[in-house]
C-alpha cells in the first residue's frame, strides 16, 4: 500500500507562476524515494505542500491516508521534516534543541530522555550534545537538523536538500545514516539536485523540471530512457566560441551537447567513436582541452537527455 499518494498536485503563485504543475506520484511504505531536479524545479514547493506549509492550488496529496488539504494535523503527526535551512535555535545546545522539539512533536515526557539520547547517538553527537549549536560545524548542524525530524518517530521523513553546504565527509556520514534508517523501515522522500546522493540513496526517483515530473521510475528504468548512450565529459582550458555547441552537435552520432562552467558534456550512442571528431571541432576552434572522460549513463545524463540542460544549471 502506498504511504504517500499525490494526485495532480499544483501550486500557482501570485503573478501566475506555476511552481508545481499537476504532479502525480506515489511512494510505498519503507522505500526511499528521490525527487531530483535543478534549483527552481519545484521540489521545495512540493515538500512545502506535503508538509502542510503551503496549500495546493489544485489537487491533493495523502500521507498515511490523511489529506494534506483537509486533515493537516494528522499528516503532520505522520511526518518528520528536515528543511533545507538549519531550522534550529543556534544559542541552544543540541540537547536543548531536541528537548524543545520533542515537546512540539508530542514525545511523551517519560520517553523523552531516552529518545533524545538515542537520536544523538544515531547522528553521532552524543559526546557534544551540550555544546551550543552555533559552535558546531555545518555538518554537525545538519545532523541535528535531521535528528529533530526524527523525534516524532515519523512514518515518512521528508528531507529537502539536507546536505547543502556540507563537506564531503559529513555528507557521506549523513547519507549512510539515512540509508541505515531506511533499512530499518523508515520511508524517505529525499529531494536534491545532487545526482550522486539520489543515486546512492533512492532506488526510485522522480525527475522534476519547471514544476513538472518529466520522468519517474526506478534508476534502471530511467537510464533506459537514455538508451545505450555514453556520456563524454570534456574539461575545457579556455573559453569556447559561441557556436561551438552547434559545431559539436553537428558531429554524426552526437545526440545532445551541453556547456557549463568550463565543462562540455556530450551524449552519444558510441562515445569512443565520436570522440576524435568532437575533439577536432574543439581544436579547430582553438579551444584548449584539459581532460576527457567517457562513462556509462547516469541520472545526470537522463536529465540532460530529457531537458537538454544539466542538473546544476
Amino acid at each position, binding site marked *: 500500500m502506498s504511504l504517500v499518494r499525490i494526485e495532480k498536485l499544483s501550486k500557482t503563485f501570485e503573478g501566475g507562476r506555476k511552481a508545481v504543475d499537476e504532479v502525480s506520484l506515489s511512494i510505498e511504505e519503507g522505500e526511499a524515494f528521490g525527487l531530483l531536479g535543478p534549483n527552481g524545479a519545484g521540489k521545495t514547493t512540493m515538500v512545502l505542500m506535503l508538509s502542510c*506549509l503551503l496549500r495546493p492550488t489544485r489537487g491533493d496529496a495523502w500521507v498515511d491516508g490523511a489529506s494534506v488539504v483537509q486533515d493537516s494535523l494528522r499528516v503532520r503527526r505522520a511526518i518528520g521534516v528536515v528543511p533545507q535551512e538549519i531550522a534550529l535555535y*543556534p544559542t541552544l545546545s543540541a540537547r536543548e534543541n531536541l528537548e524543545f522539539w520533542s515537546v512540539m512533536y*508530542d514525545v511523551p515526557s517519560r520517553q523523552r530522555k531516552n529518545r533524545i539520547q538515542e537520536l544523538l547517538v544515531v547522528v553521532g553527537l552524543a559526546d557534544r550534545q551540550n555544546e551550543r549549536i552555533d559552535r558546531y560545524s555545518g555538518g554537525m548542524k545538519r545532523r541535528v537538523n535531521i535528528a529533530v525530524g526524527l523525534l516524532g518517530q515519523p512514518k515518512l521523513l521528508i528531507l529537502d536538500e539536507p546536505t547543502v553546504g556540507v563537506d564531503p565527509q559529513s555528507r557521506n556520514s549523513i547519507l549512510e545514516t539515512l540509508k541505515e534508517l531506511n533499512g530499518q523501515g523508515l520511508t524517505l522522500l529525499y529531494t536534491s539536485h545532487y545526482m550522486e546522493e539520489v543515486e546512492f540513496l533512492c532506488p526510485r526517483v522522480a525527475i522534476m523540471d519547471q514544476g513538472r515530473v518529466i520522468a519517474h521510475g526506478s534508476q534502471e528504468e530511467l537510464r533506459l530512457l537514455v538508451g545505450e548512450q555514453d556520456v563524454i565529459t570534456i574539461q575545457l582550458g579556455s573559453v569556447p566560441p559561441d557556436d561551438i555547441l552547434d559545431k559539436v552537435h553537428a558531429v554524426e552520432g552526437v545526440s545532445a551537447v551541453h556547456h557549463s562552467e568550463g565543462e562540455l558534456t556530450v551524449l552519444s550512442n558510441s562515445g569512443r567513436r565520436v570522440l576524435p571528431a568532437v575533439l577536432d571541432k574543439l581544436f579547430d576552434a582553438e579551444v584548449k582541452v584539459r581532460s576527457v572522460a567517457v562513462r556509462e549513463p547516469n541520472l545526470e545524463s537522463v536529465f540532460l537527455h530529457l531537458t537538454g540542460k544539466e542538473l546544476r544549471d
Partner: protein
Amino acid sequence: MRKALAIAWKDILVLSRDFVSFILLLAMPLLLILVLGTAFGGMFVSNAAPFQITLAFVDQDNGEMARLLRDEVLQGPDLKEMIRLRAFASPDEARQAVRAGNAEAALIVPSGFSRAVMGESESGLEVLANPDSTIKAGVIRSIAEAFTTEVMARGAMVRLTLTELLSRNLIQPQEATATAARWVPELQSLQSQIKIQREQAVTPGAQLPGAMAYYSISMGVMYVLFAANTAGGSILTERRTRTLLRLFSAPLERRTVLVGKLLGVFLLALIQFLLVVAFTALAYRVSWGSSIPGLALMILATVFCLAGLSALLASLYRSESQAAAIGPAVALLLTFLAGGMWVFTGGPQWLDILSHASPVRWSIDGFLTLMLGGGLAQILLPIGVLLGLGAVFFGIGFLRIRKSYDVA
C-alpha cells in the same frame, strides 16, 4: 497550553543566551536609575528630607488677625508640619535672619492690620524672600495673599451686614463689634485655599517620592518596553531562521505557536520588571509602597499593557532591523511623553493631558500613588486603563500576526 509554555520558555532561554543583550536589558535600567536619580535628585524632595520652610514671623499688629494668621493658619493642622515659625520682634531682625539664611522667608504683619481689615483702609502683609529659596518664599507669598484676600473680603461682607443692621437699629454698636470678631475667624474657604496653595507650592518635589524612586518607575517601565520589544522581535527572527516553518510543520495549531510567542513576550517583560523592582528596593532602598496586592496588580497590568504594545508593534514590523530601530524609539517617545525622563509637573496643562496618551504615564501614576502610601483602591483607574489598553494591543497584534501566519 503545554506547548505554548514550552515555546515561551524557549524564547526566554534563547534571549538569556544572548549575553550582551541580556546584560544590557538588566543592567542598563539599573545604571540609568542610578545616574538619573543622582543627577536630578535636587529636583525632588525625598522621603528623607520633607519639604519644610523656616519662616521669620513679625507681629507688629498684635491684633486678632495676626493671631489668627499665626495660630490658625501658619501653625494650623494643614501647615504646621511644613512651616517652622520663628518669631522676631522687628522687621530688621527678620530681614537679617533671611539674609543670613536662617529663614527662607519672612512674613511681617504690619501694625494696624486687624483694624484695617475690619475698617475700610487698605493694608497688606509683607513678605521678604531669600533669593535662593524662591519656591519656598513663593509658598509663603501665596499663603499671605490668600489670607489677605479672604479676610478683606469677609471683612467687607461683615461690615456691610453690620452697617445694615445698625441702620435699622436691629443691633447695638457693642454687639456689632462682638459679632464681627466671631464671624471673621470662620475662614473655611481660606483653609481650603491654603491647602491648594500648599499642594501647588511644594511641587515638583513634595508629591514625588524622590528621584531614585521616580526613575526606578520610569526607567523600569521603559526597559519593560525594550525587553518586550526584543522578545517581540523574536517572532521575526523565527521567520527568518525558518524555525517558524518548522513549528508549523509540527503537530500543533498555529494559534498555539502565537500564544506561546506572546506569552514569551509577557514573561520576559515580567521578569525584567520584577528584577528592577527587587534590585531597586534592595540596592537603592526604593520603597514601592506598602500595598503588596496593589504593587502586584500594577506590575501585572503594566507588563500586560506594554507586552501587548510590543506584540502590536511586532505585527507591524517587516524586518528585524525595523524592530531594532522602531521599538526603542517608541519606548523612548512614550517614556518622554509620560514625563519619565524629567517631571512635567508645573508645566502647561495640555502637556499633562497629552502625557496620558502614553501608557507609561498611567504606570508612573499608579506606582507613584503606591509609593506615596496609596492602596489598591487608589490605583484602580491606572490598572483599568493599562489592562484595557493591553487587551486592545494584544488583540490587534494577535489578529495581525495570525493573519501573517496564515500565509507563512
